[in-house]
């Protein structure tokens, strides 16, 4: 606001009227402003996707050293899917379970911050984001310490017989799902918080005044109000979780590998570009399909 005070008023002493908007002058301006950014996104986001599609149809018998020929080998897709459908299914299964866990934890958290925190609201919000300040890989490795076989958590679970005497957490699906839940939870909480913050407390009071049970109030008032945030949050959680392979690599074993691990090794270890590209493209299509169906069923346009 103080900026207003600095506006030089001296120039106003000349009696000329304020400059009228000249329509023609600004016609090109938006395009000039947009050009660099849009060109960058086009060149390094859109064009690569086309290149990926082309690479997925390369002749599978080619190699990086001899070069690839684009032979429209649609057979790459069924071949890749046949070889790696377990990892594919696992990606969606793990991400799905992690999403349910994250909702069970994230909804109360977002609700508490939005409605119950009072003057601690901002502090708690910072607490939600703060874990993301450390490197993703470093905090995932910290889970390796927490879940380790000699750690207190495994010891405790063995003592109460939730785990057998040789039971482990590390290198199991539990560890991978826990890691996924942990790493993407803030992406779910923040949009959820944003829409729950708009929930008027008086609506809840009105609902209970009209003899609605807490559960009914939740279903008929709270949930509908939080729907846009819920949808945005689940997408922001689910998309990166499905494509993640860091948790599977660091906390799991090859038995927990997700599709990301396969794609990583196809491109960087086995150097099988056609297969890697086909799997990558399949992943994107599958995620888009899930998102599309989900948005249709949730029936809201507010997110996009």
């Amino acid at each position, binding site marked *: 606001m103080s900026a207003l005070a600095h*506006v030089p008023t001296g120039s106003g002493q000349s009696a000329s009227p304020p400059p009228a908007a000249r329509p023609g002058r600004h016609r090109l301006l938006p395009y000039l402003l947009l050009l660099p950014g849009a060109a960058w996104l086009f060149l390094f*986001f*859109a064009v690569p996707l086309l290149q990926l599609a082309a*690479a997925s149809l390369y002749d599978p018998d080619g190699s990086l050293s001899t070069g690839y020929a684009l032979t429209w080998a649609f057979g790459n897709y069924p071949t890749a899917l046949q070889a790696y459908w377990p990892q594919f299914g696992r990606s969606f299964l793990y991400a799905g379970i992690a999403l349910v866990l994250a909702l069970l934890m994230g909804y109360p958290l977002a609700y508490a911050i939005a409605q119950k925190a009072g003057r601690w609201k901002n502090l708690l919000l910072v607490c939600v984001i703060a874990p993301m300040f450390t490197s993703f890989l*470093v905090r995932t490795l910290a889970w390796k310490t927490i879940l380790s076989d000699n750690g207190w958590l495994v010891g405790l679970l063995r003592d109460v017989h939730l785990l057998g005497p040789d039971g482990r957490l590390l290198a199991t699906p539990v560890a991978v799902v826990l890691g996924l839940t942990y790493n993407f939870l803030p992406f779910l909480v923040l949009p959820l918080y944003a829409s729950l913050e708009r929930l008027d407390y008086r609506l809840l009071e009105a609902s209970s005044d009209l003899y609605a049970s807490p559960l009914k109030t939740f279903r008929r008032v709270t949930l509908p109000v939080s729907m846009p945030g819920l949808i945005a949050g689940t997408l922001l959680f689910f998309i990166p979780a*499905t*494509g993640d392979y860091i948790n599977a690599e660091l906390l799991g074993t090859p038995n927990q590998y997700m599709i990301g691990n396969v*794609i*990583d090794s196809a491109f960087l270890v086995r150097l099988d570009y056609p297969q890697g590209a086909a799997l990558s*493209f399949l992943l994107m299509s599958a995620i888009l399909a899930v998102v599309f169906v989900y948005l249709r069923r949730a029936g809201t346009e507010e997110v996009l």
Partner: protein
Amino acid sequence: MKLSRWFAEHWVMGVALLVLGYLFLPIAVVAALSFNRPSSRLSYDFNEFTLDNWRNPCATSDMCDAVLRSVQIGFISTVAATALGTLMAFALVRHRFRGRSGLNVLIFLPMATPELVMGTSLLALFVAGGVPLGFWTIVIAHVMFCVSFVVVTVKARLAGMDRRLEEAAMDLYASEWQTFRRITLPLVLPGIVAAALLAFSLSFDDFIITNFNSGTTVTFPMYVWGAAQRGIPPQVNVIGTAMFLVALLLVLASSLRGRQARRAAVTAAVPSPRASTRS
């Protein structure tokens, strides 16, 4: 009876605090491990307290090289992405032009596409074009995925801005450039700074896209990834803890400044109605 009411009132907060505990548990572990002298290179368990890791964070020099490289890449990517994204945000909020909806899709899609797909597709492009992978391919990739976040952040700030302030400046005979320099820019600046910080943290922490486009260049996340197989030096946790502290300080400082600015605005506003009634 009283107890059950208290419980009904507070259980949500209880769950929330537990979840926050879950979120902070690994941070506490990282901080603790930064003071650890591990029993062996492959051990992840706490062994013995030491200050050595904090005294010589660069004992493993390739780690510090990697951190430095990440800072360089983060800095260049942030400057480029913030410039490109801010210009686009201005065009989107302030101007009418053809192709707006297509452009919105182009900006939205990178945020909704799995990193894996963006990383592999860029790799496919670079390989097909014969571009050598390394420092600059990482920068290109980072600018690409940061731009959208910058656009969204700056756009939100611009859209919430009171246009009448600019109109007032123009009415007071400020030129367009003066209005921009003295009114628009200071008002949008917090949004631009927030966007730049976001871009830097996205770039600094990115692993998946970088992994596909780095060639032999090693950033900090790449270093940690490689070290996870060979054994993690405890200094990695020093960097992790330091990152956390620096970011926390930045957030606290900005919220303090925000509070001060708000208080200053209030005290500045208070005398004015009195002054106007007196005149």
